[in-house]
């Protein structure tokens, strides 16, 4: 199952100018649990998908959600940046299989 079919919300945004956070929210507790178990959402796999050294994957059961935190490749707004707010960094997650 693709993440875009399983999750209600897949979004990204800066958490300060040095990090981007990606939120995955599920309507269904079962889909949340399934995503949490998926090999494709282990930190090392996510990091590789984004081409960064490391990623954090944080479960947030209160909202059936998973938070991913990755370092920004360019600090927000520095020369060479392409997404100052980090609001368009969700796409690599859309087709992830869980």
């Amino acid at each position, binding site marked *: 199952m693709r993440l875009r079919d399983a999750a209600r919300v897949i979004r990204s945004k800066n958490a300060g100018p040095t990090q981007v*956070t990606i939120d995955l929210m599920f309507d269904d507790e079962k889909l949340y649990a399934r995503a949490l178990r998926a090999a494709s959402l282990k930190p090392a796999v996510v990091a590789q998908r984004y081409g960064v050294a490391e990623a954090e994957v944080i479960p947030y059961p209160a909202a059936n959600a998973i938070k991913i935190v990755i*370092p920004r490749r360019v600090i*927000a707004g520095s020369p060479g940046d*392409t997404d100052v707010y980090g609001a368009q960094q969700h796409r690599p997650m859309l087709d992830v299989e869980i």
Partner: protein
Amino acid sequence: MSNFGRVIDKWQRERGPLRILSASGQLGYGIAEKAFRAGLERDLHLIGADMGSVDPGPYYLGSGKLATAYRTTKRDLKFCLTGALERKVPLIIGTAGTAGGNVHLEQTLAIVREIAREERLTFKLATISAEMPRDLIKAKARAGKIAPIGPIGTLTEQDVDAAACIVGQMGTEAFIRAIAEEPDVIIAGRACDTAIYASLPAKLGFPIGPALQMAKIIECASLCCEGGGRDAMLGTLEGESFILESMNPIRRATPMSVAAHGLYEQADPLSVAEPEGVLHLEDSKFEAVDERRCRVSGGRWVPTDRFSVKIEGATRVGARAIMVAGSTDPVFIEKSDEIAASVEAMVRELVPPKPERPYQMIFRFYGKGVVGMQPVTRLPEEVGVIVECIGEDEEEARAVAATAKQYLLHAPFPGRISTAGNLGFPFTPPELTAGDAYRFSIYHIMQVDELAPLFPVRIEQVGG
């Protein structure tokens, strides 16, 4: 009696819950009027508004300019000032002027004084500045008391000297000191958005955990509701719990929508670091009061005696000019990277870079994986093109952008069919100067022994 004095007095007589209205999460972009006016009818103890953030990037902190337009900023400030003063409700505005430096605070105060003149308002104003003393930062850096937040380098003395502006985020401590002066209105430089709403409850002796938890949610106005929203949000602080209600009747704060909001723009959804301690949210409970109000509890406050201040600084990197165009030619689109390299070489020949300070050129072909910095699997039918130059000054940057425009338009390449021009321009001139360019050079956490000297309070009588 001042409005802070009056409300404190009233609460000490009546006790009971504290009703706090968040007028806006982004003052200056246009407060939703109807919901704000509905909120004013709720017998409020405080109106708050957040006016800034690091989100819009380093330009505003560095340049001293506001992100919001003068006329919309004035409109929103007028709503807040007249609404609060007519009903004798205290008002707190945090992170004045987008970035919260002294120049941002002063521009905000100039608009406030203008409104006071036009509307014949008189009030006692407390302002709190947030620019950090550079000698202190250097001393703290030498003493190893400054750590980077995320991937940004160790802070050096050169970073401190080169920064155009350095601010620190004040917490509840600074606002409580300002409230003690019994003003009507508090306008602060760079501030934790939580402190705007949590300082009056803290001053009155409410438990800090729930107060900060409520503050963290309502600072984004109605964003915690289903489907979001920017309407004013009412937080009713009961003590160990609080109730959330949007002032737009169509917006519903549900246990799920409020819980989900805890993720927003936070690297860690379970703890929030403040200068005076840490708010822990692992034990949060969300219960429906009815279909559009939610009761929240569980925020746990762990104070510290090792204060820390988040510091932010922006440094000028040069002057920026850009060239905007598009292309539909399949061969150009396919070979755009090689063509860009040849054009860059040509430009560097015609506009020789200064060896001691070479300019920077960045080519972006939108449609070929620019935004996500990820390669695309197939080529698009058209691309957007931005050529950016960051040069020493505006004249150099514009010279590079204009020359790049001409040579990208006419660049030859193998297989070229469309020999009259490679680009379509949406307007003229296609090259535009964009003022100075900045980068965040400081985004660090600084340990300090005392908070008060960093955030001085100043009292002023406005009008009258």
